[in-house]
């Protein structure tokens, strides 16, 4: 009884501030939008049909999925060595290294995108270095490309991947690696047949988290992709605040959540099944 009383205020606030508004948003997504009249009460799937039949919106969804998937794969490849070193190091500075990984997570995504803007401009750090080294003769376009967005989101999501992997690798006994080596396994085989299968829960958790964050990215695609590089997050905002088309904005929000949930559940099932074998 007392536990209930202690939990009541927080529960009420989350129900009133998140759960009910989400239901309301879903109800909005079934309303009709008449230009000039804004939202008109209705029960229709028209907004969802519009999204899945218009090539423009399908292209936005496909672009978002492609970027999120690419980011996840790159984060896994880049993150694994760092996670391994962090998990196995006996350095006094281990905590310092972990702070260096965690700290950037919380200083804001716009600020981190700004750093890449400094790097990617026509006279930015990357072009100046490449020109200085004589590798290129005139500046290459990096800003406002998919490459810039992918690099930006990888940097944002990498800490989550590293932390997920590190916590799992720390729990793997080092002796199993040494046993594989003693039995004559080359490093590649040890990684593929011993370390990776054992680290699979971390790989799965890290990949799912990275993929979700990639799907929902906002500041990075807006700043590094420019106004013409549309992804799902900015699309929701645009429909809501700029177009005032709340029913369609609501529908896009639920498409985003449903697609993300569907794909991550699927990935979970597939990996779990393979792990059991």
């Amino acid at each position, binding site marked *: 009884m007392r536990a209930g009383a202690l939990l009541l205020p*927080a529960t009420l606030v989350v129900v009133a501030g998140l759960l009910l508004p989400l239901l309301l948003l879903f109800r909005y997504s079934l309303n009709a939008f008449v230009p000039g009249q804004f939202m008109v009460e209705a029960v229709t799937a028209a907004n969802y049909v519009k999204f899945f039949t218009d090539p423009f919106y399908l292209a936005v969804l496909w672009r978002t999925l492609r970027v999120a998937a690419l980011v996840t794969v790159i984060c896994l490849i880049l993150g694994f060595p760092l996670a391994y070193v962090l998990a196995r190091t006996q350095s006094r500075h281990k905590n310092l290294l972990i702070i260096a990984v965690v700290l950037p997570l919380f200083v804001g995504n716009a600020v981190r995108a700004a750093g890449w803007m*400094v790097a990617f401009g026509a006279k930015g750090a990357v072009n100046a270095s490449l020109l200085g080294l004589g590798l290129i003769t005139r500046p290459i376009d990096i800003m406002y490309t998919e490459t810039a967005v992918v690099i930006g989101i990888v940097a944002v999501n990498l800490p989550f991947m590293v932390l997920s992997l590190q916590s799992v690798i720390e729990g793997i006994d080092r002796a199993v690696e040494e046993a594989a080596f003693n039995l004559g396994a080359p490093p590649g085989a040890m990684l593929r047949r011993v370390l990776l299968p054992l680290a699979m829960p971390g790989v799965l958790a890290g990949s799912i988290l990275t993929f979700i964050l990639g799907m929902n990215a906002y500041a990075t695609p807006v700043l590094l992709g420019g106004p013409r590089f549309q992804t799902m997050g900015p699309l929701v905002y645009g429909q809501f605040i700029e177009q005032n088309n709340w029913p369609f904005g609501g529908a896009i929000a639920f498409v985003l959540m449903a697609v993300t949930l569907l794909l991550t559940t699927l990935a979970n099932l597939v990996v779990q099944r393979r792990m059991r074998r």
Partner: protein
Amino acid sequence: MLDGLRLRRLALRGAAGFALAFILLPLLLVTWLAFFRQEIPAFPPQGYTLHWFTTIPANRAFASGFWLSLQVSVAATTLGLLLAVPASLALARAGFRLRTPLATLLTLPLIVPGVVFGAAFYVGEMELEIATEWPLLGSAAGLVLAHTLLVVPWAMRLVGASLATLNPALEEAARNLGATPFTAFRRVVLPAIRPGVVAGALFGFVTSFGNLEASLFLVGPGQTTLPIAILQYLAWKIDPTVAAVSLLQILLLGTAMLVTDRFVKLSQVV
């Protein structure tokens, strides 16, 4: 054989160092630009100056954005802790039937995408404003409430981590000696979980101050938070002024995180 081993170790360290550099590089570049003498971010810089830091207070969007962010995050952190500490105490008790569903419900604000949360909260404000005629849309009160929802899950996680190490026998002993539940909480439980509460407060502050996506939907015209002011400026151009403001935000939030780490190890809660 020894050389192969050494080479492998070197390659591993190199790959790890590359990933770490990748995480830190954008922050280093922003810091560098904040001290450039010329306004255009061209490399190599023509010289260095502290001038851009002195021009920040004169920029209305940044100055008022900073104050709004500060007020909103302090208010949201306070409210969030008042909700999260009792809730964590309840969830720490074993044998409570609704424990798992309620714990999941209370972490929902972290799971729902920021943009979707912002849109939903906006719709909620709109309906409530129509029903009651309270001026909610674009109000600081709405922003505080939305941020409170984001503070609660983090605060619960940090306070919960502290509570997990607390022996329940201590509270029982206090109660057996005649302390009221509130006295037992204030004199026994609270001092024991103080690191978690302090860390939760700092973490909540950082989450609220840095929030961008949800806030975008909730700010009023001409009244933005600092992260939104930075985003809007960057969508227009990048120069040492915005880099200097960014550096201030990095320093403020970075310091808060470093202090948090003194109380609860970050590697165990993120």
